[in-house]
Structures are given as C-alpha cells and as structure tokens.
C-alpha cells in the first residue's frame, strides 16, 4: 500500500509542480493586462486541462493524507505531509489564489515542515521510533471518522451553495491583499504580528536548555 502511494507520489509531485508553473504565467499576464484597465474575459472553467489538474492535485492530496493515516514511521509521515501540502498549494493555484498558494509553499513546505522534521530529530531517540496504538482505538477512530466523513460529505453534496459562477476576476490579487491588510484587516494583522512575536519568544523560552 505505502509502496504504491510512494510511486504515485513520486510520479505526481513533479508533474503537479510543472503544471503549476505552466499556469502561473497566464496569471501574470492577466495582471499585466489588468493594469491597462481593459480586462480579458476568462471564463471560470478552465476546461479539460483544469479538470485533469484538479484530479491530480486532489488525488495527491488524499493519497498522501491516507498514507499519513496508515504509516507508522514519523519521518515518512512528514514526507507524505509535504506531498499533501504541496498538492494543496497547487489547488490554491487552481483556485486563482496564487498568493495563498505561494505562501502555502513557503511557510508550510519551507517552515513548518522543517520545524517538524527538527522536532522529530530532537525528540525521538531513534527517528524510526514507533508507538503502537490499540486496535480497539483504531477501530473506534475509524468508525467515528467514517461517520463524520459520511455526514459531512452528505451535507456538502446535498447543500445548495449560493454560487456566482459568472464571476469576473478584476485586478491583481497582491494589491487587494495590501489594501485589505492595511484597511479592513488592520487589527487582526497587528494582532497576528504581536502574536508571532510572543510565539517566537515563548518558543525560544520553552525550548531553551537550562
């Protein structure tokens, strides 16, 4: 099982990255065009190509998530997690949220994941340390989660979402972010920054050797 997932992962990841970079310029071009106040109509649906890419990303995301669920080795989990995060990032791109996608790649793949690996390295005697879980717990968790998933999917599928699919992309997302952060979302932004500071100090304090 895990072997096959590994192969899928190895096949899919570079493909996904390539595709993402293939689509990126289009966006960039848009941004350029938007500057000249005459937008280019782009329909919401990217057609077959978009579909294929979505399925690829979804597949990689879910496959890696599943692999995380199954694997017992913490290092492998971290690797699979990287796959997940990357695939999610690509999905952001497909969702026309390039900035978020980039942030995702940088912060998660770059920061958090490394942090995790370090945590692994520092804490476990052997990086391959395994902690067995009782089968009963597994079954219980499986059942509960299956139910949860089932219900959520039921809701998700059956709900009528107020959609405006004929949406028009206007302007660059970066400017919108800038204005947004400094106008509407200034207070949360500041709070986050303070929080980050506090976290940095706290983490340093906690992790230090006395």
């Amino acid at each position: 099982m895990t072997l096959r997932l590994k192969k899928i992962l190895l096949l899919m990841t570079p493909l996904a990255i390539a595709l993402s970079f293939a689509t990126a310029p289009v966006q960039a071009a848009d941004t350029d065009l938007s500057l000249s106040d005459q937008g280019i109509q782009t329909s919401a649906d990217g057609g077959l190509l978009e579909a294929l890419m979505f399925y690829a990303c979804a597949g990689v995301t879910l496959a890696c998530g599943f692999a995380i669920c199954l694997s017992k080795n913490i290092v492998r989990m971290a690797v699979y997690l990287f796959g997940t995060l990357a695939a999610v990032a690509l999905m952001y791109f497909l969702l026309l949220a390039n900035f978020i996608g980039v942030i995702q790649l940088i912060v998660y793949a770059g920061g958090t994941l490394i942090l995790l690996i370090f945590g692994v390295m520092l804490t476990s005697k052997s990086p391959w340390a395994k902690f067995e879980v009782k089968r009963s717990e597994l079954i219980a968790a499986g059942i509960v989660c299956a139910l949860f998933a089932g219900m959520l999917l039921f809701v998700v599928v059956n709900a009528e979402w107020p959609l405006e699919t004929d949406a028009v992309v206007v302007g660059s997302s970066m400017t919108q972010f800038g204005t947004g952060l400094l106008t509407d979302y200034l207070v949360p932004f500041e709070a986050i920054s303070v929080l980050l500071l506090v976290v940095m100090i706290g983490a340093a304090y906690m992790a230090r050797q006395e």
Partner: protein
Amino acid sequence: MFEIGLTHYLVVATLLFVMGIFVMITKRNAIGILIGVEMVLNGANINLVAFNRYNGMSNIDGQIVSLFVIVLAAAEAALAVAICMNFYKNLNTVDVDHGDTLAG
C-alpha cells in the same frame, strides 16, 4: 464530470479534514498529532479559498482569512514543537499517552 465546481473542492477538503482528525486520534507521537493538526488546518484552508473563489472573487476576504490561518498554523507549529521538546525533556518520550498526570 470535467466541470469542476465548488463541491469537488469541498469534498477534498472534507476528506482531508477527517483524515487529519483520524491522524490526531490514532498517532501517539506528539509530532504525529501536530501533523494531523496541520492536515485539519489545510482542509479548512481549502474550504476558505474555494468559497472565496466561487463567490465571484468580488473580494478576497477568504484568502486573507486563510492567510491568517497559515500564519497561526506556523506559530502554532513552532510553539507545539517547543512543547514537544519540553514534554520530551520531562517525560523522556513524546508519547502523548504518558501525559496524563492530570487525569483524576
């Protein structure tokens, strides 16, 4: 089928979310739990972004919120790893099941 809509993303997000929960429940390694948390957050993020996208992109509130989420996730990760190291220092393990000294 090839008309990818909101629902597709929501399904993926849901599954990822649930998988995260599953990982949180079934992994005794603190780092493992952290990984589960990350998955959950990612699932949530997918939702935010997807709703944003399919609400006509008139504004990007969803993306901003998801940005905040990512940041918080990073902070949380940093803090969590620090906690893990403390945990390891005190109990000489990262098995969260040994962290039940507060249980009555």
